[in-house]
């Protein structure tokens, strides 16, 4: 008798989320575990979004600053470079310059950058604040309004500031990232609170909080895996939004992507090390269930894309 491998099927499905207007991208929509195409449907590939900033990336290590050295002084040029030269399918504009400890740029400054970038590129835009609770609550509603109708992703709404940010994203027709701090129950709770405001759960993206390989990634992995199982096996409607992994930000600040070859020759090439670290972190979190990846280095993006190609071949 021929061996028939057992197949697992689930009653739940992840919501597909489509972003952008002129050029659109969709992620999510699967009814099976990551890359388990032999068990269910995965209608969309994970989407990789290139991260850019409103201010020059002075705190990025040289390895990841270098590919953007000619364009990163201007977010418009930077965004165009990602779209035209790197073939980015999506761009993430992080408004880090609005952080009070950074340049403390105003909401008006942020609106100008967002508008300029939106006018310069066609691919879908993800707009992130500086991860400062009060400042994000002030800046994100303004940029949401300024980008009304462009079907962007706004983020990140957290427990302490979700009300204003979610209300603005809702009024301007955007998608919304809801971030909680590595706790599956709090992640569910935040999604409930946001949907109780009238925000459709099908427009949410869950961020369970990322971490880099070697820096607690197993916690992120476990929370993501359990969220995905809740979505599929328990068909939990508030756990069915797709998940984002904000990879670049966490990877390019750790020792392994910064320590020089002089100091640690046994760690090998700094450039290769950083790129592999970002690619491996992203790949690991895709395996845990992330459908949207925010990344920095073009070579790391290429590696991850090759992996996705092979998995979808």
């Amino acid at each position: 008798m021929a061996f028939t491998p057992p197949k697992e099927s689930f009653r739940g499905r992840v919501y597909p989320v489509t972003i952008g207007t002129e050029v659109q991208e969709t992620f999510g929509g699967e009814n099976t575990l990551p890359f388990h195409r032999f068990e269910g449907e995965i209608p969309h590939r994970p989407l990789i979004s290139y991260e850019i900033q409103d201010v020059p990336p002075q705190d990025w290590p040289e390895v990841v600053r270098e590919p953007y050295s000619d364009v990163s002084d201007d977010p418009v040029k930077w965004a165009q470079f990602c779209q035209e030269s790197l073939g980015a399918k999506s761009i993430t504009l992080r408004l880090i310059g609005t952080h009070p400890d950074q340049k403390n740029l105003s909401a008006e400054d942020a609106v100008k950058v967002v508008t300029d970038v939106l006018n310069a590129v066609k691919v879908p835009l993800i707009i992130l604040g500086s991860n400062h609770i009060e400042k994000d609550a002030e800046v994100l509603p303004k940029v949401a309004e300024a980008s009304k109708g462009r079907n962007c992703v706004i983020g990140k709404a957290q427990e302490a500031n979700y009300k204003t940010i979610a209300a603005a994203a809702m009024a301007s027709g955007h998608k919304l990232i809801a971030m909680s701090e590595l706790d599956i129950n709090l992640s569910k709770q935040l999604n409930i609170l946001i949907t109780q405001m009238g925000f459709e759960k099908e427009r949410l993206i869950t961020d369970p909080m990322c971490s880099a390989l070697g820096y607690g990634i197993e916690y992120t992995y476990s929370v993501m895996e359990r969220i995905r199982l809740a979505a599929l096996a328990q068909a939990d409607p508030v756990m069915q939004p797709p998940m984002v992994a904000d990879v670049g930000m966490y990877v390019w600040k750790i020792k392994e992507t910064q320590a020089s070859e002089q100091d640690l020759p046994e760690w090998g090439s700094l450039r290769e090390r950083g790129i592999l670290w970002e690619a491996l972190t992203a790949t690991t979190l895709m395996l845990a269930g992330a459908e949207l990846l925010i990344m920095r280095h073009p070579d790391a993006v290429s590696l991850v894309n090759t992996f996705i190609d092979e998995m979808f071949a």
Partner: protein
Amino acid sequence: MLIIGEKLSIIAKRVREAMMKRDKAPIQEIARIQYENGAGMIDANIGPAEDGGEELMQWMVTTIQEAVPLPVCLDTTNYNAVEAGLKVHNNDYGRPMINSTSNDPERFPMLELAAKYNCDIIALTVGKGGLPADEHDRAAIAAEIMARAMEYGVPLENVYLDPLVLQIATTQDQALKVIKAIEVFKQLNDPPMKTVVGLSNVSNGCPKHVRPILNKYYFLMLLNAGLDAAIADPAEIKEAMEEKPLFDKVLNGEEIEDKEKMTVMKKTIDVILGNTLYAHSYLEM
């Protein structure tokens, strides 16, 4: 079912202040209310009580027993305080209980007291190294404690095994494992071992209006598994027992007339069994 009233705990501000001032009135009032609601024993939790624990425990035991004709559950890690309490305890109201021993060598001496004073003792199935992973882990620890109790001369019928209820808000999967542990504990001896839980820890960290709901229905599920005793709020247990016939129907998948109550019960059962993820607003979904 033995209900051990949980309300006289040093964690509660009003109780703590009364303990510090040796003010009998609030202590006796709280003991009386618990007695009226069906408590069969009163827990006296004085904390670690490193300074003056002996005198405080004696004061608590006599203060409680002046007000209600019940035995006292002596709840502290302080060996001398427990012994002092046992010396003044009025056994005409029933045998006292020690709360608690465990598989941590520092807690073994409590067994010595349980043997010497022929009283009941709660045995937490935890060791020195972290929390038990599941019901099997708990059973293994229970077996070790049982062997040790016999060594110390404590009859097994005086031992109440406590699987250690954990917070559902942070360790949801443990809720069901504790229920299973109660079933497993019963099989460790013939006659079956007695079991006890610190009930309200299940809802620790949950919103105020959710806590009694989780406590009540979790209690009823533990009761169905064979639970013998609970350190709990007797008022909540009273309500739970009134709701038991309806709850058992819902647990069996039957319909009940009060649809709103049925929904609350169903959602809570699903959270306890791990069929849905816990969130503070789980009842609103």
